[in-house]
């Protein structure tokens, strides 16, 4: 009994902190209350819920050999120290998602997002990661697609693979769009990001020929290069010659990124991808740690309201009400389907003992949720006037400081044009108006926090560009790696019809598959960049829906496996989050399709524009009949995409039900694990 006392104390502290966050009105709440509430909830959830799942639901067995033991080869299958493996797994799941989603969700206030991140990760996100890791670990580290094929049949596997490819395309488009939004009209940011390309090429050559394998050494050299690029970026931006040369419009940047993606993904990996991955991984871990330390030292008060008037819908940052749209806006950080691909990737092949699975599967996801909480805190310590100035589309607030100040003040968040101009000047940008996408907002917040700890106000511009660089760097790495992964997925898919396409070494199929992948995400990127409402408005919900649907698919697989293990009395552990995700994604998807509100429904929006076009009218923000047609076409493509996602998830729901019913009828467990006796015999 006494061993539970410390945990009870932690639970009481957490409950107290959460009630301070939830109940105080009027006076400003300190950000540390959110951090304390989150950390104590996570600790208690890990101690009790994760261990309950491990012992009762999965029945982990520390004496059962893992793939790393059974198939040890010193390369892919290596029994790895759990702290080292935790780092590996966390670095693979943490990306831009948990940083961007919460920033966008802050338009409804900090309270809804905080509650969803904490409850979502404990009951859904971490459960999903942990279950997939467990399932893959018991099956030689097979991938999600293979696992679905093994447990639910060939057709289900093929549908899931197709769904995963479409999701990859949307993720790449959204990530690239965030980079475009962050770098457009920003010569300083553009110069620093562009400088990473020659820097990475140098690092690639260094690790290839000069000092092979010296990752630490070359990363330090790279870091020095990055800091120099940020410092000299300011002079470049101010130079009358170089400043304009590094100033690009969003459309120009869109084409630069598409070209970059196409070229980078066919270069040898050691030349550009690997060295940039070193930089972005270490910078990401360093920046996350620095942000945590910075928040604790600064202990900033939250300036955003706990709940804003936008919970009912009609917010400027993204459309739609709290339910279901908050739950798809914060995707990564609360629950992310993409993690199912990571948890069935390299990690299950490296895990040394089944006893390590809870800390890696469940624990690393809690850590990711903590990153999401920090992003939410970052967005909420900014003056709400600044937040809405940065995140509202130009169509709503105009493009100059006085129109933006008037529009945002009218929303109920008073701000002066001077403050807008001063903030832009502080961070070394021409403008901060309508810099949607989350990254610039987070960068302003990070500049606020870091400059409080190191350097004071004079360092704000440096820290802002450091934050932009850090975000852009790992997004570009993800674009490059994701294009490659998408290409392999597409080759697998096409090979279902044309078997010869699977040969990943032949030039022809590789180039065709790469081209198709780049064209697919490039199409959505271009659409987002030219979208008069800012793109993020349209694409982020589609991304959120697709990512949460992948999570639902992974949890359905987990449910099917539990039924096949004859552990169905514990299947509520995965069925509850599955049901919640299905409710959220299906209703969000349906609203996107059939809502009559033109701000929410794609088809309603298309109908409004095509009715106007038939009359020969041109509706703002279109400026010509061609733009009208473009908008209608985009709406219909988006609607088709959402319909495909709905069909994929419903089909897999049917396969899951069928599998579960068959498993209940069977007398024995039917799950296709590598059996223990065989394990012992080998």
């Amino acid at each position, binding site marked *: 009994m006494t061993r539970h006392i410390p945990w009870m104390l932690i639970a009481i502290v957490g409950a107290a902190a959460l009630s301070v966050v939830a109940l105080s009105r009027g006076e400003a709440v300190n950000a540390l209350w959110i951090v304390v509430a989150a950390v104590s909830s996570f600790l208690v959830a890990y101690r009790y819920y994760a261990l309950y799942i491990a012992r009762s639901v999965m029945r982990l067995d520390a004496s059962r050999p893992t793939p790393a033991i059974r198939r040890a080869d*010193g390369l892919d299958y290596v029994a790895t120290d759990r702290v080292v493996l935790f780092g590996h797994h966390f670095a693979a799941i943490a*990306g831009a998602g948990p940083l961007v989603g919460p920033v966008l969700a802050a338009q409804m206030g900090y309270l809804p997002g905080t509650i969803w991140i904490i409850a979502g990760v404990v009951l859904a996100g971490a459960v999903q990661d942990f279950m997939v890791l467990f399932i893959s670990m018991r099956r030689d580290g097979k991938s999600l697609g293979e696992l679905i094929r093994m447990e639910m049949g060939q057709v289900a596997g093929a549908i899931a693979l197709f769904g995963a490819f479409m999701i990859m395309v949307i993720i790449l488009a959204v990530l690239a769009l965030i980079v475009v939004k962050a770098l457009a009209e920003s010569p300083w940011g553009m110069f620093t990001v562009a400088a990473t390309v020659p820097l990475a090429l140098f690092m690639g050559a260094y690790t290839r020929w000069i000092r*092979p394998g010296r990752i630490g050494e070359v990363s330090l050299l790279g870091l020095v290069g990055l800091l120099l690029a940020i410092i000299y970026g300011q002079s470049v931006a101010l130079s009358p010659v170089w400043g304009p040369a590094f100033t690009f419009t969003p459309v120009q940047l869109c084409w630069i990124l598409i070209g970059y993606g196409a070229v980078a993904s066919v270069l040898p990996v050691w030349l550009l991808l*690997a060295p940039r991955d070193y930089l972005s991984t270490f910078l990401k871990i360093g920046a996350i740690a620095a942000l945590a330390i910075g928040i604790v030292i600064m202990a900033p008060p939250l300036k955003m309201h706990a709940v804003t008037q936008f919970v009912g819908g009609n917010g400027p940052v993204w459309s739609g009400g709290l339910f279901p749209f908050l739950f798809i806006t914060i995707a990564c950080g609360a629950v992310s389907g993409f993690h199912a691909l990571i948890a069935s990737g*390299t990690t299950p092949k490296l895990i040394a003992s089944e006893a390590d699975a809870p800390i890696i599967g469940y624990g690393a996801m809690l850590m990711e949720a903590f990153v999401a909480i920090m992003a939410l805190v970052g967005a909420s310590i900014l003056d709400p006037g600044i937040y809405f100035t940065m995140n509202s589309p130009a169509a709503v607030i105009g493009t100059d400081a006085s129109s933006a100040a008037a529009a945002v003040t009218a929303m109920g968040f008073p701000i002066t044009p001077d403050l807008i101009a001063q903030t832009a000047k502080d961070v070394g940008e021409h403008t901060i108006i309508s810099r949607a996408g989350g990254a610039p907002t987070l960068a302003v917040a990070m500049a606020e926090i870091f400059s409080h700890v190191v350097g004071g106000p004079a360092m704000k511009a440096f820290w802002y560009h450091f934050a932009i660089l850090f975000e852009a760097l790992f997004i570009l790495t993800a674009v490059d*790696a994701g294009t*490659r992964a998408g290409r392999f997925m597409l080759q697998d898919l096409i090979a279902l019809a044309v078997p010869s396409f699977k040969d990943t070494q032949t030039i022809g199929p590789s180039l065709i598959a790469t081209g198709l992948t780049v064209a697919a995400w490039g199409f959505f990127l271009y659409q987002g960049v030219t979208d008069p409402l800012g793109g993020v408005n349209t694409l982020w919900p589609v991304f959120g829906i697709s990512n949460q649907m992948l999570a639902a698919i992974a949890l359905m697989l987990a449910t099917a496996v539990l039924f096949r293990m004859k552990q169905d009395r514990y299947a509520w552990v995965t069925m509850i989050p599955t049901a919640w995700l299905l409710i959220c994604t299906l209703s969000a998807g349906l609203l996107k399709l059939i809502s009559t509100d033109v701000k929410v429904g794609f088809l309603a929006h298309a109908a409004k524009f095509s009715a106007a076009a038939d009359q020969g009218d041109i509706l703002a923000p279109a400026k010509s009949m061609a733009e009208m047609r473009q908008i209608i076409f985009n709406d219909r493509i988006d609607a088709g995409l959402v319909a495909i996602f709905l069909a994929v998830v419903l089909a897999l729901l049917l396969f899951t039900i069928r599998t579960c019913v068959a498993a209940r009828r069977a007398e024995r467990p039917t799950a296709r694990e590598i059996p223990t006796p065989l394990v012992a015999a080998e």
Partner: protein
Amino acid sequence: MSDLLNRIRQMARMMVGVQDYGAYVQHMQAHHPDLPVMTTTQFFRERQEARYGGKNGGKCC
């Protein structure tokens, strides 16, 4: 202290997909004494190719 530094170094390398070379050599000596062992450079290149060139290219959002 040097043990801690070594662990941090190992974790940092593992974050970018490079396993411990010592463990690989040990594995080869214990299980495949007849097979040739890759040098550190070969090992490093093999790991790079496995992480980025194969099917594990996916990273999270």
